[in-house]
């Protein structure tokens, strides 16, 4: 096994918290169950990682296997990344989209490789007909940097792709092109929408609203809030299965003054949560 691959696997496994170790290794499915049982999971983490890396060496783990482990780790820790949203569009009146996942993957990889020889592309199918793509960028003269990959999550036959924040902005056009062409779209724009929570972003762009009725809960029974002359200064924590909708309904319910700040109400309507405020 290549030294760099061994080091990469070692560093990835070291990141995994002990409570998740078994789950993630099982999801990786590279080290078989019977081999994992021979490992002492109660020892110090550093020694455990050494044992695991030795096992990977004996099974001749490749860069591909290592990249897959990295994807799985990131899937378990998706909140550690900040996700941007790209919106793609087609020409009107196009044929029905017969999305073929295998063709998408090969087309995507081909487009990247044509432009950049040094790039590592890995895929992992996910639930709801989505795919997680991991891209490690290199340059014309340098091998890909495995420690600063970009992730793309794409749900088939939708116009939206979620990408993790990329330090190397210079590769964004190439990534955009690969996504657009491989998924049979024509144009791509970056939305002013950004969050650590993929599920929230999904809910906003896929407009996944349920028919909720959010009731206002108060522990005070009119105590501290009743009969005050001066305004009350306090910190209010809002939690709700659908927070933005609940905030919108505060005004019609007579609890807040209308109109609500458009900064709050435009988030689901316009699909943006990233605002640039300038001096006039």
């Amino acid at each position, binding site marked *: 096994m290549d030294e760099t691959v061994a080091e990469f696997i070692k560093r990835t496994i070291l990141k995994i918290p002990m409570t998740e170790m078994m789950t993630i290794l099982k999801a990786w499915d590279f080290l078989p169950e019977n081999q994992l049982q021979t490992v002492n999971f109660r020892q110090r983490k550093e020694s455990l990682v050494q044992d695991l890396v030795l096992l990977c060496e004996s099974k001749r783990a490749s860069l591909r296997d290592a990249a897959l482990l990295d994807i799985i780790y990131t899937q378990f820790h998706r909140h550690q990344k900040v996700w941007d949203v790209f919106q793609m569009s087609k020409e009107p009146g196009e*044929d*029905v*989209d*017969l*999305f*073929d*996942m*295998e063709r998408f993957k090969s087309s995507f990889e081909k487009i990247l490789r044509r432009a950049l020889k040094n790039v590592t592309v890995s895929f992992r199918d996910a639930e*709801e*007909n989505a795919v997680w793509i991991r891209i490690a960028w290199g340059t014309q003269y340098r091998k890909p940097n495995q420690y600063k990959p970009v992730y793309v999550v794409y*749900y*088939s*036959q*939708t*116009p*939206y792709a979620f990408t993790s924040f990329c330090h190397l902005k210079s590769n964004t056009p190439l990534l955009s092109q690969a996504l657009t062409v491989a998924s049979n779209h024509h144009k791509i724009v970056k939305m002013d929408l950004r969050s650590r929570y993929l599920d929230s972003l999904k809910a906003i*762009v*896929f*407009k*996944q*609203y*349920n*028919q909720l009725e959010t009731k206002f809960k108060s522990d005070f029974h009119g105590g501290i809030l009743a009969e005050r002359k001066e305004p009350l200064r306090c910190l209010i924590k809002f939690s709700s299965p659908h927070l933005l909708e609940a905030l919108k309904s505060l005004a019609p319910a007579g609890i807040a003054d209308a109109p609500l*700040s458009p*900064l709050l109400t435009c988030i689901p309507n316009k699909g943006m949560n990233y605002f640039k*405020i300038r001096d006039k």
Partner: protein
Amino acid sequence: MEWANDKSKGGVLAHLERLETQMSRSCKNLEDPPRETAESDLGTKIHKLRCLRDKLRAEVKQRQARIKASTANAEPDQTLEISEQEAVGGKEENMKAILQAYRFTGLSGKRTSRGVCVCISTAFEGNLLDSYFVDLVIQKPLRIHHHSVPVFIPLEEISAKYLQTNIQHFLFCLCEYLNAYAGRKYQADQLQRDFAAFLAGPLQRNSLCNLLSFTYKVEPQGRSFPFCARLLYKDLTTTLPTDVTITYQGTDASSTSWEEQRASHENLFFTKPLHQVFTSFARNGERLDMSLVS
């Protein structure tokens, strides 16, 4: 500017609020000279607006009652307001009639304060599947307030074509798409769940379930070489494929019996839902076993 120093108090949202009030205050200052009793003036203004709001609400209620009372004749001096109200009222009646007529197709609805919320229940072969809702606001123009339609169903296209001109057709079209999608999904799920033994590898599918690719055997014991199937559903309103390609993977491809089987499979996939095709494979297999025993 002095506000820059206050940035530390209260965080970003508070800061934004301050900017907002700053903006509105500076706009106001250009029009009116500043007054010391500004606060109490605002208080009176709020009170006046609230009274006006209550008055308008009462008026709206009165007019709605009047419309219900005098359906036949329109009073001449209020013709303009009432005819607009009637148009909206008319749309509501129309909606009710459509929903009553379509109840048996899985369409139902309930009145909301703004319009109507339509619920589309999908089904396939007598099995009740997922439900989706579309919350319509009855205004000019008619618009969708909320919905739970999956993002890959072409809702925008269907709305653009029919929502304003023919609500009936809009609902019917959406029903078609959703029922067909639910039916295709049901078949793919059934295949993965109940006939996994017949599949030589994972079932490749997409969000709309309109492209399915899989390798299969006719007998789960694996005596026969696998076939490769590629099913395309180019018509999103149907649950049967528009294109079927079956290829035979075995070595003795020249044998006529394999070619016959391949052709008959193609025909089966064109005409029967997926899980029924595999049920018939399973039944044929049982028949073969029975003949070996006897």
